[in-house]
């Protein structure tokens, strides 16, 4: 076998690394706009799913166009509030939702809280808020829709990055998400109690709890914490706007 000098080895490595770096950066830059678009579409279709407007998505030919059209049709208003419930005129709700991680990493009192207003064909409103927290292996997130009383949950969808398939990953299944419908985040005295994810024995006839996922305890607890953490930020706004108290 031929022997190579150290200089050759260094030069070879250097050239290899430069070629690879240039190639990868070029491709990444070329594909970035498309990837960003995909993420936007995903956010929009998630928001629509939380109010049950994206159910027939798999039958649509041009998914992207459909989602954009539906989103523009049903979500015709959005705004941003801070922890105190004060309206933030300069902030764009969708922009913040796209980078929700930035907000979720801040302390609750410094975050900005986006709200999307859904109007169905009868003119009834629902208010959709994004949530983000930690599961067992990575981030979990979701969108929760509220009735106009700003207390009763009208629908919820959740998703995750890398929870265990068949266990924690089940938070994005319909049976789990449907449990949230009709639950309330304020108790009869108007105090904020959130919705907890508990063992089934404790959830019967409890308007503030849903049944956890067997084998997915840490993910379930994480989801519980995420809801407390995020809903709390909206409490001031909800109390002002809603009829909970």
């Amino acid at each position, binding site marked *: 076998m031929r022997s*190579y000098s150290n200089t050759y080895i260094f030069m*070879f490595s250097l050239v*290899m690394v430069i070629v690879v770096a240039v190639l*990868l950066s070029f491709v990444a830059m070329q*594909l970035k706009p498309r*990837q960003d678009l995909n993420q936007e579409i995903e956010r929009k279709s998630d928001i629509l799913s939380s109010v049950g407007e994206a159910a027939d998505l798999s039958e649509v030919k041009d998914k992207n166009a459909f989602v954009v059209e539906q989103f523009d049709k049903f979500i015709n208003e959005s705004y941003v509030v801070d922890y105190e419930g004060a309206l933030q005129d300069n902030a764009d709700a969708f922009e913040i939702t796209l980078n929700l991680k930035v907000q979720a990493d801040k302390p609750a009192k410094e975050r900005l809280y986006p709200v999307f207003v859904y109007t169905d064909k009868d003119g009834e409103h629902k208010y959709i808020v994004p949530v983000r927290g930690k599961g067992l292996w990575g981030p979990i997130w979701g969108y929760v829709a509220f009735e106009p009383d700003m207390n009763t949950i009208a629908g919820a969808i959740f998703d995750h990055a*890398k929870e265990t*398939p068949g266990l924690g990953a089940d938070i994005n299944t319909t049976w789990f998400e449907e449990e949230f419908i009709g639950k309330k985040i304020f108790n009869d005295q108007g105090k904020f109690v959130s919705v907890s994810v508990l063992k089934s024995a404790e959830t019967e006839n409890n308007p503030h709890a849903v049944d956890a996922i067997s084998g997915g305890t840490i993910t379930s607890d994480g989801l519980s914490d995420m809801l407390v953490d995020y809903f709390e930020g909206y409490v001031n706004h909800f109390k002002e706007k809603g009829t909970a108290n």
Partner: protein
Amino acid sequence: MTEKEPLFSAKNLKLIREPLGHSNPITVQVLGICSALAITVQLKPAIVMTLSVIAVMTISNVVISLLRNMVPPRIRIIVQLVVIATMVILVDEILQAFAYDVSKQLSVFVGLIITNCIIMGRLEAFALSNKPWPAFLDGLGNAFGYGLILIIVSFFRELLGSGTLMGYQVIPDSFYEFGYENNGLMVLPPMALIVVGIIIWVQRSKDKELIEQN
């Protein structure tokens, strides 16, 4: 070599045929098992994974084969890794741009193609000492051999575990009314091992050459 070898000589065709049968990377060499367990719950991700591995494997094999006289042996493993990693990142970026849903489903497993031992094994054992064309065929053959098993396993897991194929329901509702149930175990990783085991069993009982003499 003075005489030019035809492109599809018997020797070259063997490079494609062997890995499908009795030197199959999964069932005979028992490489790449981890990904075979992870992404075979449904047919669709398995097919995309197969296509991704075909792309990564053939291109890496050809690139390494082209460089084979320039790569200093002392850093050859690093060079192989860089080539594979580059290809995998390219595949990942392209999936994210053009097949976002699938890329979400495959999630970390696309990145883990880098660690698929079949690919490095072929680069080290074949591409480094062969010309680009045979290396291309060898990559193709081994990726097909890998993909074949993936697709067989995922076919049974999706059919018996979820009653669907490619996401479409194939087991009629009337079966469920008579008390038929999807097998939940099929969806979990251990069942992939068992299915691979069954395939190995069937293959060994058909192919006498594979039976060890002792």
